């Protein structure tokens, strides 16, 4: 006798409930009760909470909680083919970009790659001390034979950050222009930022093969794109209203206003967003190594799997070193953008 039989009978739902009752699978509680040979389970607690499982005992046509999770899975699997049909071609360029960038970073000899990276550093930061620091880090990686994995990680971070900025800035602009867009997108950003990263790896694994590099590319971008969107939106909304009014008073078109006034004035904030995006994609690289992303993350994973303490620690500290390096370079670039307009 289940706890809520009375309620079902009073509501006159008994007939509806009993249709096809024999086919309903047994719940764990029923199995336990059968194994125990008595009704002790139902009696001991008094009135149980009317959860799906408990109601199911009274009425076979109310689903169990495991039906909910199974339903989500079945639903996803049933649209999987269509999703794959749409998403596969769209995301294919991501695989190509990741593979080719990885190929360039791996196959270019160190005596070309290192000077090229140092030149790039100097070009964005215009700072000798930052360039010197980057040189020291790269030489250190080479010295401890981690140069190649570090380059793989760097390649992935470059591609994913670049795409995040390319997609995130326009989304941020759209959000800043429309309050409705902002209200819709902010919850999605919250979701992306707080959802445990493994959770969106699961549907991705269903959709794409684990050997495809776009799998980890998408995972990293979804996670890392959030700050650049948020800070582009914020930066544009924070642009001095007086300056915007002046732009209107002189008859600037919407595009002129965006390109000449809003984006340049929001640039410090956008750059801060890019800095955060770099940091977050680096953090995600380790988790992405679970789904075949190469780089330092693989070594960290090996350290965990095989309990190789030293390997794990060296690779982990390597990631820290990369993070500090990327952070200093992007901060120096941000500082360079800031000067010239804030010299009082």
């Amino acid at each position, binding site marked *: 006798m289940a706890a809520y039989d009375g309620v079902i009978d009073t509501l006159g739902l008994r007939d509806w409930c009993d249709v096809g009752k024999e086919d309903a699978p047994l719940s764990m509680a029923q199995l336990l009760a059968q194994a125990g040979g008595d009704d002790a389970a139902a009696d001991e607690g008094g009135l149980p909470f009317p959860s799906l499982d408990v109601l199911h005992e009274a009425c076979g046509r109310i689903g169990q909680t495991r039906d909910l999770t199974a339903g989500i899975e079945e639903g996803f699997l049933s649209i999987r083919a269509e999703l794959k049909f749409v998403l596969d071609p769209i995301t294919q360029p991501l695989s190509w970009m990741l593979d080719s960038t990885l190929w360039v970073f791996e196959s270019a000899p160190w005596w070309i790659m290192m000077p090229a990276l140092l030149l790039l550093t100097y070009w964005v930061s215009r700072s000798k001390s930052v360039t010197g620091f980057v040189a020291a880090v790269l030489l250190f990686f080479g010295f401890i034979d981690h140069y190649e994995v570090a380059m793989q990680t760097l390649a992935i971070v470059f591609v994913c950050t670049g795409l995040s900025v390319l997609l995130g800035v326009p989304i941020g602009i759209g959000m800043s222009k429309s309050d409705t867009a902002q209200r819709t997108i902010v919850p999605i950003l919250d979701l992306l930022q707080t959802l445990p990263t493994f959770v969106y790896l699961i549907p991705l694994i269903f959709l794409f093969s684990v050997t495809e590099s776009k799998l980890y590319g998408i995972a990293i971008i979804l996670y890392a794109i959030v700050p650049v969107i948020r800070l582009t939106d914020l930066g544009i909304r924070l642009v*001095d209203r*007086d*300056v915007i*009014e*002046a732009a*209107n*008073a*002189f*008859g*600037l*078109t919407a595009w*002129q206003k965006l390109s*000449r*006034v809003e984006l*340049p*004035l929001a640039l410090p904030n956008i750059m801060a967003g890019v800095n955060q995006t770099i940091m977050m994609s680096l953090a995600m690289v380790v988790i992405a190594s679970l789904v075949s992303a190469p780089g330092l993350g693989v070594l960290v994973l090996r350290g965990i799997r095989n309990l190789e303490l030293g390997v794990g620690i060296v690779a982990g500290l390597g990631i820290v070193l990369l993070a500090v390096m990327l952070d200093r370079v992007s901060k120096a670039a941000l500082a360079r953008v800031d000067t*010239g*307009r*804030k*010299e*009082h």
Partner: protein
Amino acid sequence: MTAKVSLRGLYKIFGPNHISMVPHVKEGMDKATLLDQHKHVLGLQDINVDMQPGEITVIMGLSGSGKSTLIRHLNRLIDPSAGEILVDGQDVMKLGQGALRSLRQKQMSMVFQKFALLPHKTVLENAQLPLSVQGADKATCDAEGRKWLARVGLEGFEDRFPSQLSGGMQQRVGIARALTANTDIMLMDEAFSALDPLIRTDMQNLLLELQKELHKTIVFITHDLDEALKLADHLVILKDGAVVQQGEPQGILLRPADPYIEDFVSDINRARVLRVRSVMSDHDGRDCDGDVQAGATLEEVIALSDGDTNHVYRVRDGEAVIGQLHMVDLVRALVPRVASGRTQSN
């Protein structure tokens, strides 16, 4: 003379259903009742002002009187709830997006209280903004920008950034920017209010000097009566969103329409503001103690008379004799209540 800019029955009410509130205000509902019963804020009511070409129209009022709201209606940075805004006879309310943008680019330029320069652009790039927006080629932009920067006294500062300049110099850039646009109408929203007094005087003189040459139609907003009297050809006094009195400034000073304006004008140095022209009487051919120009301030006449109230002066405009000034009338004109009382009894 037809007006360059005319405002006809302009109303502005702030709130979600502002247009449906206009009838209430037209029926005489006041600001407090409107806020209380309908949660709408009355910004402007029944504004009728004509601004003549080549004149400086000063709109004066205390904070909250609606003067900044009013000036933003002229180029439709704010849309009215009711009424017409005519520029060269054309109703600005009927313009589409493109025509409105062209009006803002080619007919009206604006100078702002907080300068509103682009902080990431150089002084020259700021000054040439109106032209570069219109797609002029770089050489024209450069030449015009440099010309007007030099005209406002900023030669040699072209490659600085605004933040490297003092407030007064930044506002000179603001004025140069408005002049580069080469528009007939210039809107100046408390343009000198953020500057310290000495710089402000400099800038007022600069504006008057430029105006002598350029004859633009200038609409100038201020809360400072001295500034208003110095600059105005036509003075409009706003209170709680309505025009209390408008006209030639000397006339307002001598014949304030209500106690509010009387209070307002009681604090200023009348000897320095009033001119001989405003207090003289007709010449009756008597012997005089000397000649004064009609445009001279009373202060100058007092200095000339050395304080002797028995003197009578011939008033000349250039060479022609246009009247006479008795020192007794002059002294009376210096006391607000006596001056207005006398003119009322006349």
